[in-house]
């Protein structure tokens, strides 16, 4: 299916099914409600076919360009039918499964993610390993029929809801650094896993500590080869910085409009609004090129760090307008809108932290795009 046809058909379907797709404002005020609703929307969109375009047939897709996925997420986010955070995990994790999981496993699992029957999480960061991902220590040891995992992950988004986890584990020595990492696909209901949600500063239990105590993982849950986990992780990141960012950018445009609607007259300065719009526009122009490179079958790489940096800047400057325009609501309002703006303002502070901090992105730009040589 071509983009124009997809767009027209999807827009019509979204209009026609507005009632079923629109989140209940009371329920969607909690993370539980948001997670459940995002999965409901995915199921409806999957059953109607929309969610299957842009994915290969061998994982339950209907084929077609990844642009179709780009537009689907954009439309859902711009209409505020889904939460872009949980929704984007699909864009981040499904491509990894398609590229690295045994064919059988991908065929079994990916449709459940696409259809919103399951939630998955991404277990990379650890207490001692944030930016320096190559130093992770959560250990996987070989057993007769698979792996046994011991260790801890942290900041694992939505782990309390997750059915599966794409986990990076240490299989080599710690000195083996990037070469001794292995990616595994782990069932979150396996005995020995303890998930402890962490309250965040924006008052949502967005991420968790995840403890692994002698957790058995079958051999066929290996993603890629043993010791290839770094490559798996590096291939995830460009996805995190392409389609998922496109969706988030669309959401931000919507929120800028919401902010204009809510802001009292005279509370926003033309210069600030103009600057934010320019940043969002430039991000969209850049990310659009990235979507088309994906469409052309190009392998995305370090240049997507530019996209990530641009979005972080745009997102934070957009939300910087919020206290200026809606100060009283942000600091004290107990109503739903006030709480939402407050939470989103606070969440925007993480836009330069998660998915590789802005400093790490600049390191990548310097090393890989400007070819400045080693940084020591």
């Amino acid at each position, binding site marked *: 299916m071509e*983009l124009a046809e997809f*767009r027209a058909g999807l827009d019509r379907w979204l209009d026609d099914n507005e009632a079923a797709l629109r989140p209940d404002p009371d329920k969607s005020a909690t993370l539980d409600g948001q997670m459940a609703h995002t999965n409901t929307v995915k199921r409806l969109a999957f059953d109607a076919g929309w969610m299957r375009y842009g994915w290969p047939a061998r994982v339950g897709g209907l084929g077609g360009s990844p*642009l179709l996925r*780009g*537009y689907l997420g*954009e439309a859902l986010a*711009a209409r505020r039918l889904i939460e872009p955070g949980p929704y984007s995990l699909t864009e981040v994790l499904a491509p990894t499964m398609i590229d690295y999981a045994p064919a059988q496993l991908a065929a079994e699992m990916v449709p459940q993610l696409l259809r919103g029957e399951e939630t998955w999480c991404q277990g990379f960061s650890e207490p001692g390993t944030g930016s320096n991902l190559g130093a992770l220590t959560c250990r996987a040891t070989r057993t007769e029929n698979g792996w046994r995992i011991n260790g801890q992950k942290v900041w694992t988004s939505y782990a309390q809801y997750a059915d599966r986890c794409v986990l990076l584990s240490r299989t080599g020595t710690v000195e083996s650094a990037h070469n001794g990492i292995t990616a595994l696909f782990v069932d979150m209901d396996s005995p020995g896993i303890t998930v402890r949600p962490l309250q965040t500063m924006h008052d949502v239990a967005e991420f968790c500590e995840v403890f692994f105590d002698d957790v058995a993982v079958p051999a066929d849950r290996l993603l890629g080869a043993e010791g290839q986990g770094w490559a798996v992780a590096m291939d995830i990141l460009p996805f995190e910085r392409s389609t998922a960012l*496109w969706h988030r950018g*669309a959401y931000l*445009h919507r929120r*800028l*409009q919401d902010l*204009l*609607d809510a802001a009292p007259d005279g509370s*926003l*300065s*033309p*210069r*600030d*609004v*103009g*600057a934010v*719009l*320019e*940043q969002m*526009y*430039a*991000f*969209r*122009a*850049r990310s*659009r*090129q990235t*979507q088309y490179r994906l469409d052309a079958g190009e392998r995305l790489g370090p240049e997507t760090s*530019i996209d990530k*940096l*641009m979005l972080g800047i745009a997102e934070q400057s957009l939300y910087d307008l919020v206290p200026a325009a809606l100060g009283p609501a942000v600091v004290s309002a107990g109503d739903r809108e006030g709480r939402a703006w407050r939470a989103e303002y606070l969440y925007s502070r993480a836009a330069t932290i998660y998915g590789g901090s802005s*400093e790490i*992105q*600049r*390191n990548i*730009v*310097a*090393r890989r*795009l*400007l070819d*400045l*040589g*080693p*940084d*020591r």
Partner: protein
Amino acid sequence: MDSGERQLFEASLRQAVERGGLFDAVLNDVGWRDAVAEDPTVAASVFALQGELNLTSAALDDVVAVGLGVVPSAALAVALPAPGAAVPPAAGDGRTVAVSGLGTSRMLIAAEVFVVVQRDRMKALRVTADELDRRRISGLDSPGSWVEVSGSVEAVDVSDVDWDGGIAAARRAIAQELSAASRAMLRLARDHALVREQFGKPIGAFQAVRHRLADCLLAVESADATIAVAWADPSPFAATMAKAVAGRSAATVARNAQQVLAGIGFTAEHPFHRYLKRTMVLDQLFGTSASLTEAIGSDVLRSGKVPAVLPL
């Protein structure tokens, strides 16, 4: 032009520049005016090269002429808005209008000057060049690049003109030159960072330097993405965005590149300052980045609507 023809055009342009001679003469030789009249996006190639190599020319006259809906000619100069302004260089409803604007070097040699007059509808007239005072400006940019034009002229034979089209064409071309000049400044700083050693290593090994250069690339790529949209979408809005983003990016790149180049970059001998000065002048033309940003924000606040997003 298709992309093959475009590549040929760019290659012959670059070769001709390398052989030497004034850029205006080179542009004449490659048939630039016919090309841009037929396909305005050819200006992307010319202004990118002009920015990269810090060249000057009268190509802006041709670009604006085409945007205004006028056939460009080497004998036709266009009166541009005065530095800092984005309004026509002339105003007045009476029989005589006061002209006060800017010209490229062509203003000194052209037979005719095309003047847009601000009335309730934009009007244009052609004036014999002798009727106007034309004076070289000695400012930041290389001598002879710019000319001040002023005078009082009879408003006979006025006609309608597409002022918005002229402005948009100018903004696209200037944005392109700004970003190419920015990329050139980044290249100077980046190359310097690889060879200049302090504390026993290249300064490019220091993260403070690396992050400055990364911010330069971020700025240039932001501008280029926005400019690419403006070439594909002829709307005034896209052109305004491109000019605003490119102007701001150039200032970011200039600031960071200057710091990395440090002492050597402060000398008159080093090419850096010529790029810096050129980008400062370009930012003044057809609306500064600061004024465009403010105007964009004012429009949004007045209408209460975020402009429609660029479709996928």
